[in-house]
């Protein structure tokens, strides 16, 4: 491949001004042409490795949990079940995702902006704070001093060190986000990119802004709770705790969404040379995530006392669900960026040639397409429906809720992060991918596994099965209850899905670890196994629809959404009256 990204974009690296650091801190990538700050590269590597370790911890616990809830095996005892639910939640939703996001933020603010890292030393302080947080929290969970679930709703109380661990991790993450802004500032001042931030960096910036808001919210609730666990504060009101905790808990999912969607655009660029067909639209959608960040948090209080229906309806929608709208916009903009580029490459036949002739053999591409489908069809539809005031009654705290976020955060975010890693291995770790044959299958396996897991959980939840519950036969209780016999089928399906997904993660971790530590070195573009596409040629004419195939796909999505919508409301209408 002769054209590097830099040449393709016809953008010469700006002259380094006198303020800039000495040249030897950089290497120029022989594949992409980007100037890479070596100190930034090291930080990206460290954070990515920590992320993979956290993921391994999380999925190991997940497998044990699946085989506990699968009643014929019922593996763990009650104590260890709840302990590992807490452990799994923290490692999957916090450590894995945030470590990877920090790596992403550093990448987005230095490598693709051709700029240097603002303060590598502080970057290492942040990293070690986060590691300390990880170790302390996990230790106190595993010795049984923090069986409080990820949400740690008061008045359940954990050991003070558990809260301290979470706080240390969060402080580290805040420092990392501040460094991201420092990098942006340097890039701006030294004019290392054009007039506007690249879309990917813009998306990461959105994620960083949201991260600051949510981490600050986290501090507001975790610090008093820490003091309360030390006995210095008398009482933490449980309703206040839940309200503020979700300002962290769900808003932080918007960090994931913003980071994930940024990567979707990045992969469109890398694999087919595509970009958003209208950048203004995509950027506006990113801004909507920031402006409507609180909507999703309020969803957690829909069936709670303390706040009125007017509060609930208004604060989960501000009358128009604009955060949902943002995702719907990306739902069109991301596939259409692929479609438009593919059509310009000449795959113009019919509605879907652009899709059938897409680079399916590229694991990053298939990961992203599958992530888009899973995020939209499983996570998105259920998220909107469960997030409405009344329909929440039939799913609140049931296993359908984790089912929903397996769709968003596992198929969506995790699969996306796994997919982009296939590019990070050669570009950042400078190693060839070992086991490309496996890599081609891994995203499909993961998608099938989590889709089975997630859909089964959603159905089980609709049948009333509670989440975070050790024994759905209620052994030892004064009464018992037999769920609809259909649950047995879905438990089996969930167990199968979980096992398949676990296998897929093991394959992925195997590929990553072998490649990074033992893989042959990448010495130039000829060692690049995944294609980096040149920019798609400009369009010839602009008549009619730019992405008719995408439009059809989004209409199919709409129909699925409406079907699920009416199904849920019909179900709700059949329950007891309540007011």
């Amino acid at each position, binding site marked *: 491949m002769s054209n590097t990204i830099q040449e393709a974009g016809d953008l010469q690296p700006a002259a380094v001004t006198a303020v800039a650091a000495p040249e030897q801190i950089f290497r120029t990538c022989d594949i992409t042409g980007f100037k890479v700050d070596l100190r930034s590269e090291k930080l990206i590597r460290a954070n990515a490795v920590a992320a993979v370790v956290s993921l391994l911890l999380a999925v190991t616990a997940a497998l044990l949990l699946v085989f506990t809830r699968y009643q014929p095996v019922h593996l763990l005892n009650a104590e260890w079940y709840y302990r590992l639910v807490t452990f799994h939640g923290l490692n999957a939703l916090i450590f894995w995702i945030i470590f990877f996001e920090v790596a992403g933020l550093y990448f987005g603010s230095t490598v693709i902006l051709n700029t240097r890292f603002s303060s590598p030393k502080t970057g290492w302080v942040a990293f070690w704070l986060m590691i300390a947080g990880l170790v302390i929290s996990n230790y106190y969970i595993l010795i049984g001093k923090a069986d409080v679930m990820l949400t740690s709703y008061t008045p359940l109380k954990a050991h003070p060190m558990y809260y301290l661990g979470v706080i240390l991790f969060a402080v580290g993450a805040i420092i990392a986000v501040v460094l991201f802004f420092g990098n942006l500032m340097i890039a701006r001042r030294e004019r290392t990119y054009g007039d506007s931030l690249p879309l990917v960096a813009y998306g990461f910036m959105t994620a960083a802004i949201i991260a600051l808001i949510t981490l600050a919210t986290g501090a507001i609730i975790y610090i008093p709770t820490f003091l309360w666990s030390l006995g210095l504060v008398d009482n933490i009101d449980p309703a206040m705790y839940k309200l503020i905790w979700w300002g962290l808990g769900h808003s932080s999912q918007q960090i994931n969404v913003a980071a994930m969607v*940024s990567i979707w655009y990045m992969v469109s660029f890398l694999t087919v040379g595509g970009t958003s067909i209208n*950048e203004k639209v995509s950027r506006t959608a990113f801004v909507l995530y920031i402006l409507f960040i609180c909507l999703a948090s309020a969803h957690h209080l829909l069936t709670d006392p303390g706040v009125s229906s007017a509060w609930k*309806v208004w604060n989960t929608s501000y009358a128009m669900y604009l955060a949902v709208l943002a995702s719907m916009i990306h739902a069109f903009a991301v596939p259409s960026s692929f479609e438009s580029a593919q059509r310009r490459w000449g795959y113009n036949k019919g509605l879907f040639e652009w899709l059938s002739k897409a680079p399916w053999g590229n694991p990053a591409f298939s990961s992203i397409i599958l992530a888009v489908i899973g995020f939209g069809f499983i996570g998105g539809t259920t998220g909107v429906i469960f997030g409405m005031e009344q329909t929440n009654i039939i799913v609140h705290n049931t296993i359908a809720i984790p089912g929903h976020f397996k769709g968003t955060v596992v198929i969506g975010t995790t699969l996306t992060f796994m997919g982009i890693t296939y590019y990070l291995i050669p570009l950042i770790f400078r190693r060839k991918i070992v086991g490309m044959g496996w890599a081609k299958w891994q995203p499909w396996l993961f998608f099938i596994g989590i889709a089975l897991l997630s859909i089964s959980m959603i159905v089980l939840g609709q049948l009333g099965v509670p989440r975070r519950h050790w024994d759905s036969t209620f052994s030892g209780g004064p*009464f018992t209850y037999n769920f609809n016999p259909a649950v047995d089928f879905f438990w089996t399906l969930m167990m199968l899905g979980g096992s398949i997904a676990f296998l897929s993660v093991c394959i992925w971790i195997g590929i990553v670890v072998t490649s990074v530590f033992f893989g042959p070195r990448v010495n130039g573009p000829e060692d690049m196994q995944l294609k980096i596409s040149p920019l798609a040629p400009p369009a010839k004419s602009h008549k009619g629809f730019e992405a008719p195939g995408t439009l059809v796909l989004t209409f199919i999505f709409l129909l699925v959404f409406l079907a699920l919508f009416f199904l849920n409301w019909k179900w709700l209408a059949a329950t007891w009256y309540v*007011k």
Partner: protein
Amino acid sequence: MSLLSPAEGWYYKKVSKDEKMWMLIALVLCIMLFVWMVMWHVYGKQNPSSTTYKTNTIEFAQLTEAYIKKNMIGVDNGIPVVRPEPNSDVFLMAEMWRWSPVLVLEVNQAYKMHISSKDVVHGLSIQPVNMNFQVYPTYDYLLEFKPTETGEYKVVCNEFCGIGHHTMIGKIVVIEKEEDLKLYGYENMKKAPVAAVAKDDSAPMSDADKAILGEQVYTLKGCGACHKTDGTVLIGPSWKGLYGKEERVKEGGKVFNVLVDDAYIRESILEPTKKVTVGFENLVMPQVPMNDEELDYLIAFIKSLKD
């Protein structure tokens, strides 16, 4: 060009026809979702209530206890059964780890349910109708339920509330006519004066009378959620034959034997974490507020549970 700065003039590029169309549809859908929720408050029959009272755990526990004492018609598996009047206020308390009382409701009648927790956060989940609400301590959530179908319903807890979470299951029975009570073995339950033993201040009560009152305390305070009286060991030791026995207990790391007598039982209830029976170290007993009289009755009840 998502990795590069956007092309010149990106800000003024026209939005394509299909993207515009999709955004418009999406926006209309989003607004519809909002309107739908509002309209359901007008035409729909399932809406979470907006009424909450601030309370505290002790007050709510007392209210529930008094309510149960007044309206109890019997006991089902150690949990008091109450048959409230339609349109009346009903108390339903969540605690580690039971729902109290069991309710007998009439179909198509409304009941104003006061729901709160005595300790941690719980989740009210009525099955199989699958209706779910959050239950907090210190907040009394007033939900007016109108059951639309007869049958036996279970109340599952679906918010993690400690190690015994999975044993927390209550019951609601919805009947249409009196005969339906037979289906649940409730046909002989009648509202009776709670104190079966008339209290006479002049003469001291007999141990048997005290034990009867003690059993009521056992039921009302929810001891049965953990302590059975038939020898089965669940979350806590069984009380059958407990009195007069030697128990191995742990206090401050030391393990020794102790005789189960009045003083020991009294101490164990008032300071549950002081001496912990060996084998139950990880299952911390909650504080159960009790006055001297109730303690007295309860001890008499434990005494009466011979092997």
